[in-house]
């Protein structure tokens, strides 16, 4: 978490290998990340779906670099992931024919299809209406962490406190210019989490005051 303009997205793009860091390096399972790799998949704020491709083709795109798979196999895998995110039957729809929540589901399916180890999410719920976002938040945990999934961890960028407390195990708060780590908070709540719990509210308060500090630095 960080106030706007701190460089959250930049940091995420550096982790993804889309940008070279001026100093330092990104390590994934002991190896340096030197460029985009299928082990890291990204979910974008504006979904980044190719408008000229159908939902199925968008997901298939994640498998294009796998030359060992035939076209049919790729198609089958893509279909499976679309079903996993609850979009079975919408394979031939173009992004513009889908609602915001559905678009984000396609984006999640595409990211999962690449079989990444780490999933990077850049404010994935920011462009959804409140109700859709709430529904998707409740589902995303099970979508990403099931027995078929290869994902071991998610790094999510957000400035929505509630979302952060609901989904995270560990929150890192950045602030200042250049950005520093202001605080690290571990969230030890059992899942599924209830936003009305007193403990949940306590975490919200704590994060809120930490964020206020980061705004001042």
């Amino acid at each position, binding site marked *: 978490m960080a106030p706007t303009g701190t460089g959250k997205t930049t940091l995420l793009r550096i982790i993804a290998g889309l940008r070279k860091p001026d100093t330092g390096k990104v390590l994934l399972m002991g190896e340096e990340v030197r460029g985009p790799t299928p082990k890291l998949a990204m979910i974008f704020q504006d979904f980044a779906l190719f408008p000229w491709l159908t939902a199925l083709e968008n997901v298939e795109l994640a498998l294009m*670099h796998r030359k060992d798979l035939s076209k049919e196999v790729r198609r089958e895998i893509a279909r499976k992931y679309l079903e996993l995110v609850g979009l079975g039957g919408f394979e031939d729809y173009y992004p513009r024919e889908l609602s915001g929540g559905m678009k984000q589901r396609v984006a999640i399916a595409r990211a999962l299809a*690449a079989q990444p180890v780490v999933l990077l999410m850049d404010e994935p719920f920011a462009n959804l209406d409140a109700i859709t976002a709430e529904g998707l938040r409740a589902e995303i945990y099970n979508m990403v962490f099931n027995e078929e999934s290869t994902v071991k961890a998610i790094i999510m960028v957000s400035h929505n406190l509630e979302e952060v407390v609901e989904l995270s195990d560990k929150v890192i708060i950045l602030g200042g210019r250049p950005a520093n780590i202001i605080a690290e908070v571990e969230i030890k709540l059992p899942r599924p989490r209830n936003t009305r719990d007193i403990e949940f509210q306590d975490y919200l308060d704590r994060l809120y005051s930490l964020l206020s500090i980061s705004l001042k630095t």
Partner: protein
Amino acid sequence: MVAVDIWSIALTAFLATLATFGRVALTIVLGIVLGWFLGYAAAKSGLFERVFLSITQTLEAVPVITFFPIVLIFFVKSIGGYIGTELAVDFLVFTAVVWNIWVGEYEAIKTAPQSLEDAAEMLNLGFWGRFRYLYIPVTMPRVAGNVLVSFADALFYIVVSEVITLGTTQYSVFGIGALIAAWTSRGDWTAAFIGLSTLVVMVTAILFGVLRPFVNWAVKYSYDPLMEVARTRVRRPIITSRVRTLAARNMRYLRRVIAIEDAIMPVFVRASSYAVRHRLLVRPRPRNILTKTERYMGMGILILILVLIAYSIYNSWQTTWDPIMIDLYKHGLLYLYYLGLDWLRVALVTITSILTAIPINYLMVTHRRVEAILLPILEDLASIPVSAYLPLIAIPFTTYLAIILGIHASLELLVFLVAYLSTAWYVIYNMYVGMKTIPRSLWDVAENLKLGTWQKLRRLAIPGAMPATITGLASTVGSTWGGLEVAEYIQGLNGQVYMVHGFTALMDYYTAIGNMVGLEAMSLILGINVILLSIFLWRRLFRLARERYRLEGAITL
């Protein structure tokens, strides 16, 4: 016997039109394909970007046809034969249509959404994959927005250039422009009329059979990530069954084809308004920063070019430049006077076009039925090149009217009419895009405030339409020059030549008598004129339009 004759004439005209259309298609497709690579290179490399931008932005507003004689002489003399002429024609049309397309493609690639570029990179699509899935599709709406104008422009220039007279020799290629010219100069009116009708029918067929469907298809390529389910009916998800998916897809297609609403739906407007909006609204990303090597390389290349130019001027001073300078010294003032006359004509034609465009567009925008009838007609008329029917409309001006008004006034009127006809459609069209994209809510407010027609025009319609009109002005002026070029000097009936006092007329005359030195001198003046204009007028006007447009904010279809 006569019937057989008519059919054989029609068949010849049909084949000739096919040949002409083939040239047009070839140049446009080649332009589009080359544009992908040039646009990509420009969007990615700072050095190339600077070169690309200064060349395209200057040439975009150039009346290319005025440089035609020089190009022609080069091709015809150095290659020669039918191939030389063919190449000269194709090259001319190519240079007339590509700039718009290239600028559009570059801007589309340059402003491709960052997240899509990131996604493409994360998905390891590779160079060709990125081209196929990102850079080519992203240019489609801009290409679609330009395609009507490119088609019309190309036809205009190709019809003129299929017949070329250099000195006493005439060069021609097989095509409808050459045929109509041959028939009219022979006085074969029936044949000329059949040829023209064939052209009109085939232009209409291409427009409605090829270009409209293409534009309709390309609209799906416009990227608007956060746009919610708009325009699409709610569709029930289909349980995964191939047959049913297929059926659904075909139904969708059928529905799309049948819908009458779509048949009169101004697709070109949708596409070109997208292009205008894209040009004006999308915050252009800053130019790429030059790396140190690139800067040195750029400087090196610049110095090399300057040295080469200096050397060639020095080397050929005696043979080339000296005579040009002497010619300029002797006739320079006359050239400037003629240039002034032509600019006066251009200004008059532009103002008249704008004045006539206002009421027509206001009627179209406020009355649906007028719009439904008039718009397709206007689109069609815009694509039928004046140059093709010029020989026919010239007849009364050189005969009947010449007697009544006197030959000078009559020819002047003809020049004005032809220049107007080659300009007005585009002005109307550009302005229509602007007026049509004024937000509905503003019209509602105007109704609500009970504004009269005059007030609505003054406060809403005209200012709302101006940015799009002004942005289009650079290219419409190019079309006006094209009109002047063909009408100021006509070699028509009975081999008689009619000309008025004007810059392009004199250039044509020089071409005809083979005065190379004079031609080069005039081209030099024109070149300087064009560069100055591009720097001091068009770029400023364009920036102004862009700023105002942004200021006025959300203008959506």
